[in-house]
């Protein structure tokens, strides 16, 4: 039972990651490869504010959202000057720069050794320790985050973002400031990744740079691509499928030493199959 709850807790974190990437990737039509970097910024912000400043869980998570969003807003200024393939490469560049900076800033982030003994979540004196407690808390946080992202996508802001994706020229003619819309979308999306980072840091209680590398960015991308872009259901479906399916592999007798590689082989193959046969994903819109 504890095992099932821990998988579901992880699923809640990935649901937030996939849904937040969907704002930029699906609704914005921008293929970003640096989502895991904002995830890392959120995780480190939550861990450091809790350990060094003694902040409790909710303020630390709020700080994680804010810091990730601010970083994204600033980086979006040069990044959004780029188009097409160059945008993809630029976002890949930022992914590597941010993780490298975290890796090498020993004084703040403890570098490759990572940060351990991150306090567990505590809200109004109640400390979440049990698997049930974590699951309930994270399911609530994920539900709130997904709901907020859903309403943002349906709001005038979300519709403007989609209009810019469909036809930049037409949106400009209608008086929309396409840069500002996209910068805000980037910041909101990174804020979601920041929240997921805070959730991860306080759940695993240990973080190091290797959890947030380029491979993780591609993994989050694959959740959205497989599930479907530009809908609320799509990323949730993708996260459910790709977080739970590899767990099933254990039951048919694959050793755990090959676990990580089998998991990656699986999502690599899924990316190929969906890109070649159904680029809109299981439940997505035809965006690309």
């Amino acid at each position, binding site marked *: 039972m504890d095992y099932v709850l821990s998988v579901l807790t992880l699923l809640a974190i990935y649901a937030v990651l996939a849904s937040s990437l969907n704002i930029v990737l699906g609704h914005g039509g921008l*293929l970003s490869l640096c989502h895991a970097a904002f995830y890392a910024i959120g995780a480190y912000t939550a861990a450091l504010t809790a350990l060094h400043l003694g902040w409790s869980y909710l303020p630390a998570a709020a700080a994680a959202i804010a810091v990730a969003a601010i970083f994204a807003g600033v980086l979006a200024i*040069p990044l959004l*000057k*780029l188009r*097409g*393939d*160059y945008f*993809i*490469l*630029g976002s*890949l*560049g*930022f992914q*590597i*720069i941010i993780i*490298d*900076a975290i*890796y*090498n800033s020993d004084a703040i982030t403890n570098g490759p050794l990572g940060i351990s003994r991150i306090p567990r979540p505590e809200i109004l004196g109640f400390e979440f320790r049990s698997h049930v407690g974590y699951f309930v808390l994270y399911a609530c946080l994920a539900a709130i985050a997904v709901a907020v992202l859903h309403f943002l996508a349906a709001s005038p802001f979300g519709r403007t973002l989609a209009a810019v994706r469909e036809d930049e020229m037409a949106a400009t003619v209608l008086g929309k400031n396409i840069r500002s819309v996209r910068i805000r979308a980037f910041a909101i999306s990174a804020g979601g990744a920041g929240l997921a980072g805070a959730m991860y840091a306080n759940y695993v209680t240990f973080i190091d740079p290797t959890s947030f590398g*380029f*491979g993780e960015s*591609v993994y989050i*991308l*694959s959740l959205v*691509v497989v599930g479907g872009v530009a809908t609320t259901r799509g990323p949730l479906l993708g996260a459910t499928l790709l977080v739970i399916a590899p767990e099933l592999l254990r039951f048919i007798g694959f050793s755990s030493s*090959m676990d990580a*590689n*089998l998991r*990656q*082989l699986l*999502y*690599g*193959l*899924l*990316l*190929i199959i969906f*890109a*070649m046969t159904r*680029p809109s994903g299981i439940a997505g819109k035809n965006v*690309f």
Partner: protein
Amino acid sequence: MSQTVFLQSAVNALALGATYGLLGLSFGLIYSTTQILHFAHGATYICAAYFLYAAYALADWPLQPAVLIVLAGAGAVGFAMMRWFYEPMVRRNTSGAVIMIASLGLFIAIENLTVLIFGNDSRVISKASVQEGIALRGVYITPLQIISVATAVSVFVLIYLVVTRSKLGRALRAIADDSGVAVTVGIDVPQLRYLVFVIGSMTLGVAAVLNSLDVGVSPGMGLSVVLIAAVAAIIGGASGIFGGVAGGFLIGAIQSMGVMWIDPRWQNLMIFSVLIIVLVVKPTGLFGSVR
């Protein structure tokens, strides 16, 4: 800083840049003519490196036939990728973003398949990198460094002659310039795409041999190789075919000569900062021409 240290770094930069120049050229050839962001190039590298490992280290063949196997194998892998992987998508007018996602998927699948077959450890296949070098006034040059530069320069010259002097080269340049117009003047674009993938992948195979003799083989190297190849091609100028060579030497210089001023652990950060600055300030690349 002494003059010897400077000269030694310059020699190292040149040797490293030769291999990186091959990487940049191989990526640039493919990207400029097909517009495919070919991340699976990293998978071709892994295949080439393990062909060398199988033939040279496991089967204990002499180096020359092993190299021939690597080149033929890399070319075949490149051809297969274009024929059965990209071509179906290109024919259906799949967008560049989706093709890139598929390419990432192929890279991840092959990388992890290699780990499942050969394991994750790095394997040394030659002692060439620690062979005693020639000393010239305190500057050491290893035989492998000389071979790297000589091989790379021969490949550059060969491809340069093909591209600038032959009819085939003229067609390639026409596609790199504007593939739509190339079709209308009767150039067989799909046929040339195969050829470019074969040549690009074989060029990558040469780099794989040189690099594997130097640092060994491991599945994890595919990613760093394709990143260096892509960055070299883009900062050098992706609109032309040879920007990648210049970009490769530039990255080699940053890595080898940067250590004189900056802690080597900031290398990656510097290389990718250069990428972003070039993309924003001069998207045509440092040595690319404006169309």
